[in-house]
């Protein structure tokens, strides 16, 4: 028997009426896409976890206080919240001074603060990891569109809303992101499967 997925807007309505299970369904439905997108944007699991938690706390409070009015556009709305937090985080980190040890290595990387999880270690030497690193090398605006399209699975129209641009700008940025990734692939002579 076919099952029908309850729309996000309906879940949110149930949640505002006191149905905690509706929120749990919403969270479990979108958590991986939202987390993956945040992670791909900030490039650090621990920062990604903080932003993910802050995003959902903001979502909870917005819904609870009746500020959610996007009907079934929950994911683009949630991605807009997390995207703004990612931008703030990246800008803050750019302002932080880099402290290096006697060998010139970033001291934060040697404190165990940014230890990698098992899943990260598993893919450490994978070609996929290489591509992900190159995505991080892309200009911020290009990386953002690529991440929102491929990780969050937002349409270009939705990305335009999230990023305050228009659809042609988004498609153009995606196109240049792909060109730049191809250049990096060729430059590094690694065949991406």
């Amino acid at each position, binding site marked *: 028997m076919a099952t029908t997925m309850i729309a996000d807007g309906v879940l949110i309505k149930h949640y505002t009426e006191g149905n*905690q299970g509706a929120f749990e369904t919403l969270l*479990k439905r979108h958590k991986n896409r939202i*987390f993956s997108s945040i992670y791909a944007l900030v490039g650090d699991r621990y920062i990604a976890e903080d932003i993910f938690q802050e995003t959902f*706390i903001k979502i909870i409070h917005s819904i609870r206080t009746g500020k959610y009015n996007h009907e079934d556009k929950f994911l683009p709305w949630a991605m807009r919240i997390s995207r703004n937090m990612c931008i703030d985080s990246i800008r803050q980190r750019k302002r932080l001074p880099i402290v290096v040890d006697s060998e010139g290595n970033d001291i934060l990387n040697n404190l165990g603060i940014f230890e990698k999880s098992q899943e990260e270690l598993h*893919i450490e030497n994978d070609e996929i990891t290489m591509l*992900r690193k190159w995505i991080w090398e892309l200009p911020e605006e290009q990386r953002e569109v690529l991440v929102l399209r491929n990780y969050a699975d937002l*349409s270009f129209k939705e990305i335009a809303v999230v990023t305050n641009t228009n659809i042609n700008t988004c498609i153009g940025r995606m196109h240049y992101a*792909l060109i730049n990734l191809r250049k990096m692939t060729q430059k590094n002579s690694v065949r*991406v499967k």
Partner: protein
Amino acid sequence: MIYNITKNELLKYFYNECSPSVRQLIEMELDANPEWRNYLNYLETVQNSTKIDFKPNDTLVSMILEESAATEHQSL
């Protein structure tokens, strides 16, 4: 060919965002345009390579659910 397909349209085609008429045109002309096929294959490669499904840890998810339950009690 009457209509010139751009890479931006191929991009929209790949992500199922082009108009039905452009879709039909691309599918009709695809075999005659190997460079289109190459571009679409490249898009698929990038997409597959970026499909890494990272998951937030369970503790974090539980904390968010607890926060949600706590705000419910506050609003009662």
